[in-house]
């Protein structure tokens, strides 16, 4: 099967050509199949978010190729949706208007927008919240609205930058269930960044473990456990332990480097 997203020997240097130049990512390669759920796991500051921004088309790589369906990524496109750590809904729009913001930009008719909003809000469990304002919702509800907003564009790839990091543990587990359901129905590929090993094991088809800065692929771990996955399953725990060991080396190295730099 042809990959949906190809990351080929990508290198990203921040503040290139200045004394402050730092290499965030160096020689990173992996790909994402259509409909696959890939989680990026690594120590903080290793460039995972930078990669998402590049795949989204909001940043450009310094070297290497980024392809979507075999075509180079040159800028943002509605077929590549993204969800951020903060929901960043627009406070001057209602939830329904937020969800259909992209459709409005595209010039769709109000009737169609209403229909899409209804449908998507139902899917994310916010059927009654369409007329509310973002500040009337809880963090988890806002993040679900942001998910609906991304889905409204029917993206082929859904990128998520630590989407549940700001939520409490119970809400987080709920959101993961929601996400899995929606992902299965939508058929989109998911590329998600997280710090949480448990979250990675609970959700991913494959986990890309990163080295500390500059970010490279340390190992790609396939998760073959059947869904729904149970955190008490011995195989689940074993995998978590293995990923923990992989990461611990990198986190140690990142700390040592940080201390040496001070």
């Amino acid at each position: 099967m042809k990959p949906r997203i190809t990351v080929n020997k990508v290198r990203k240097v921040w503040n290139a050509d200045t004394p402050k130049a730092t290499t965030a990512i160096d020689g990173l390669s992996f790909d994402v199949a259509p409909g696959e759920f890939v989680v990026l796991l690594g120590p903080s500051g290793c460039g995972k978010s930078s990669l998402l921004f590049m795949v989204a088309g909001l940043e450009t790589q310094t070297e290497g190729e980024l392809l979507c369906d075999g075509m180079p990524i040159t800028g943002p496109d509605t077929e590549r949706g993204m969800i951020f750590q903060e929901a960043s809904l627009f406070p001057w729009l209602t939830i329904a208007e937020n969800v259909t913001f992209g459709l409005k930009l595209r010039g769709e008719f109000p009737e169609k927008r209403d229909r899409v909003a209804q449908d998507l809000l139902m899917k994310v469990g916010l059927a009654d919240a369409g007329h509310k304002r973002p500040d009337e919702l809880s963090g988890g509800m806002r993040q679900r609205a942001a998910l609906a907003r991304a889905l409204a564009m029917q993206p082929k790839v859904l990128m998520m930058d630590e989407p549940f990091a700001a939520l409490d543990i119970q809400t987080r587990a709920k959101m993961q269930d929601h996400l899995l359901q929606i992902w299965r129905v939508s058929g989109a590929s998911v590329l998600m960044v997280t710090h949480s090993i448990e979250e990675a094991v609970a959700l991913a088809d494959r986990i890309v473990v990163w080295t500390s800065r500059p970010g490279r692929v340390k190992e790609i771990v396939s998760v073959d456990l059947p869904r729904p996955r149970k955190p008490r399953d011995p195989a689940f725990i074993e995998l978590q332990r293995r990923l923990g060991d992989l990461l611990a080396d990198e986190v140690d190295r990142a700390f040592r480097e940080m201390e040496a730099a001070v």
Partner: protein
Amino acid sequence: MRVVVGLALGFVGAVAFGIAIRYYRIFGLLTLPTVTLLTPISPVAWLPIAIFVFGIGDVPAIFLVFISVFFVIVLSTLSQIDNVPASYIHVARIMGATKHQLFRHVILPTVLPGLFVTLRLNLFAAWMVVLIAEAVGVGSGLGQIVMMARNTFNSSLVFFTMTLIGLLGYAFDRALLTVQNKVLWWVGPAATGGR
């Protein structure tokens, strides 16, 4: 009336000007130094110019109010635009917004609340400028009455007019607040400098 017209013109003109500076890079590079240069000049210093360009009447008063809010709001617009959360812009770009759509649907609604606060803060300044203009050369209005009362040693008229000025200023502020709450319904009172 003079204050209202001057404020409205100043606000709309300044916001449009500020957005244009950020929208068209060249326009910004050409005009921004002039704006920065003109901002520190007190509106009162413009008074003679206003009178010899526009003569005696309403126009110089309106012009002075306009001047007293215009530059401040242009600069405020710029700083507000620069402080629009990056995530708003990212979201809009991912949704396929063109530059025009980005400014109209995202940046404008984000900056308006902050600009309204600036407008309200400058309302009083504008109000004072109008009184000075009236006292010196417009030929009518409350400022003129205060000057006349001063010249005739009519202290009770002076105090009466001052009270009137205070009350009118207060009423203006309330009116502006009402407009703000109507137009910018999504911002609570806390974010806009209180009630």
